[in-house]
């Protein structure tokens, strides 16, 4: 099979390899069902994986997950791991919304108990969690000293300030904190943008959703996680807001300027990068880590506001609600992790841009309960169909540096969606399925219409077949607050 001049061959179940040629330093590999290939080729995102394969110090493969779509620099759904001595770190390989991520929470509630109250719940979510462009003031404005603590402590700051409890930290990737974070590496511009946005959703594809488990796909693991059919769950999807965008923008600009000082060239300026161990590479890693901490604190605050909203709307106690974070995963991040290269455990800088960590059992990074099972992997679909909770696998450690996909993946531009659909049509269609929606802007609902995304069932099937993660439960949305 050919993509332009590039040879593509089947490399296992739902796994494809782009053979190395020209200036590629490694082959590329992507995961998809055969039926998804034509859509992936049309989008031209394959070219972006090939570009990533040209970066210095890249190890084994440039990778893309089944929700791959065209981005800038790296494709969305891109994963790449770089040697710490000879490799690079790239802000474009992380993306602007640093540590955009998603968390999945269980409750003691059953669907039948809240069926008639979904509208009230979503209205209360809307009142408690600011959403939309420039959303701000969910909690009081921070001062600079407090912001620096958020940037250093991540989720811990939120818990210490009354948002959630210590158990949440155990159920957060990296325990909600990157240790290398250094607030001094952020510009004043970035910090200014972060002062009043903690606890806000933002816009676009970010959401706060209440849903229900409609199918158990692995009973044993679901039991271990305390999940059962008809159980009500909550998901939060957002990131580091304007602060994170500014960190990426600042460092990308600096790296573009400094690119001429390095003995390698990038094929796309958006792939601007620096040696991991250079001063600027190290500064970016510390700044990105601080922005990642801000994002974890943000999701922790939002989750806590959502939990309180449920207690108030339903007039029940925390014990009756039984709200519990199952896991929180990052979508956009670069992290130093140990992986096997040529039979030896090696420290690498793994970039995930629109991809989720999917660590299998026995990884020391996981808390005890998940070290036994593998980590939960959350794959939200569009707001009209399903979402999935899966489990990381040992196979993913070999195939994809322990990575899986992060969502369904867009197939239609926002402009095309606006031309094709209208607000009432989308809202009514969702309403007919029993899904209550609320968005700060009508336009967002149209742009995020379910038909603008790939079929999440296919994407998850590809992940499952390729062995990157294994299905545990499927959920369907009941009410969605969009940005």
């Amino acid at each position: 099979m050919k993509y332009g001049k590039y040879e593509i061959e089947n490399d296992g179940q739902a796994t494809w390899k782009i053979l190395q040629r020209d200036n590629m330093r490694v082959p590329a590999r992507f995961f998809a069902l055969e039926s998804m290939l034509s859509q992936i080729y049309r989008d031209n995102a394959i070219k972006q994986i090939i570009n990533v394969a040209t970066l210095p110090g890249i190890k084994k493969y440039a990778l893309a997950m089944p929700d791959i779509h065209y981005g800038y620099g790296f494709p969305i759904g891109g994963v790449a791991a770089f040697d710490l001595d000879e490799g690079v770190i790239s802000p474009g390989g992380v993306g602007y919304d640093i540590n955009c991520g998603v968390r999945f929470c269980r409750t003691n509630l059953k669907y039948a108990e809240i069926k008639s109250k979904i509208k009230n719940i979503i209205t209360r979510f809307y009142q408690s969690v600011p959403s939309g462009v420039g959303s701000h003031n969910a909690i009081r404005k921070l001062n600079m000293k407090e912001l620096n603590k958020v940037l250093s402590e991540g989720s811990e700051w939120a818990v210490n300030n009354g948002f959630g409890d210590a158990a949440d930290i155990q159920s957060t990737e990296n325990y909600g904190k990157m240790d290398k974070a250094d607030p001094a590496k952020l510009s004043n511009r970035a910090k200014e943008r972060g002062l009043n946005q903690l606890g806000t959703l933002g816009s676009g594809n970010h959401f706060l959703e209440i849903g229900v488990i409609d199918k158990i796909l692995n009973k044993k693991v679901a039991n271990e996680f305390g999940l059962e059919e008809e159980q009500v769950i909550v998901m939060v999807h957002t990131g580091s807001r304007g602060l994170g965008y500014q960190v990426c923008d600042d460092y990308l600009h600096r790296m573009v300027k400094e690119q001429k000082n390095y003995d390698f060239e990038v094929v796309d300026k958006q792939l601007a990068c620096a040696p991991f161990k250079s001063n600027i590479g190290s500064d970016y890693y510390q700044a990105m880590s601080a922005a990642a901490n801000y994002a974890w604190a943000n999701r922790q605050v939002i989750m806590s506001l959502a939990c309180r909203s449920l207690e108030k709307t339903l007039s029940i106690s925390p014990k009756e609600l039984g709200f519990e974070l199952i896991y929180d995963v990052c979508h956009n991040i670069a992290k130093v992790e140990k992986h096997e290269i040529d039979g030896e455990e090696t420290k690498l800088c793994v970039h995930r841009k629109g991809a989720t960590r999917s660590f299998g059992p026995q990884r020391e990074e996981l808390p005890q309960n998940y070290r036994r099972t593998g980590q939960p992997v959350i794959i939200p679909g569009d707001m009209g169909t399903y979402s999935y909770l899966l489990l990381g696998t040992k196979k993913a450690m070999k195939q994809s540096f322990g990575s899986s996909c992060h969502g369904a993946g867009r197939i239609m531009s926002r402009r095309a969606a606006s031309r094709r659909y209208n607000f009432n049509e989308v809202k009514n269609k969702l309403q007919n399925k029993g899904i209550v929606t609320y968005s700060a802007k009508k336009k967002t609902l149209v742009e995020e219409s379910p038909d603008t995304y790939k079929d999440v069932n296919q994407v998850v099937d590809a992940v499952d077949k390729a062995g990157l993660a294994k299905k545990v439960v499927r959920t369907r949305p009941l009410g969605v607050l969009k940005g």
Partner: protein
Amino acid sequence: MSYKLLDHTADLRVKFSGNIKKNLLKNSAIALSEIIFEIKQNDVCIDNSKKLNLKLEEAEFSELYIDFLREILFRINSSQFYFIDFNFKKITSTNLEAVCFYVEQDISNLKNEIKAVTYNELKITENKEGWSAKVTFDI
């Protein structure tokens, strides 16, 4: 109209144009204000306009242009400046000095989020009709 929205799967791609270089810059900044606030330039009350001095230096014009857009976008997003006019004191391939005129908008007037200007597939061209630039924005 001095700009045209183009299709892009996940982000926003815009073609800006101007008959001469400085108008490409001016039109791009005004277009960004229009897109983000969803208010046409002619509908903006300019009674209380203020000014901002901008001085930029880059290695080549494409980088200078992106840097200019970055500065404009930062002020729209962080301070809700709606840019209405520009007085360019100097424009070369590598340097730019301008007085930027703007009016402040309320934060509730922000209608569309543009997170950042990217370098991705940037195309700046000059032909007999003038200058144009195709830019991808992260949204």
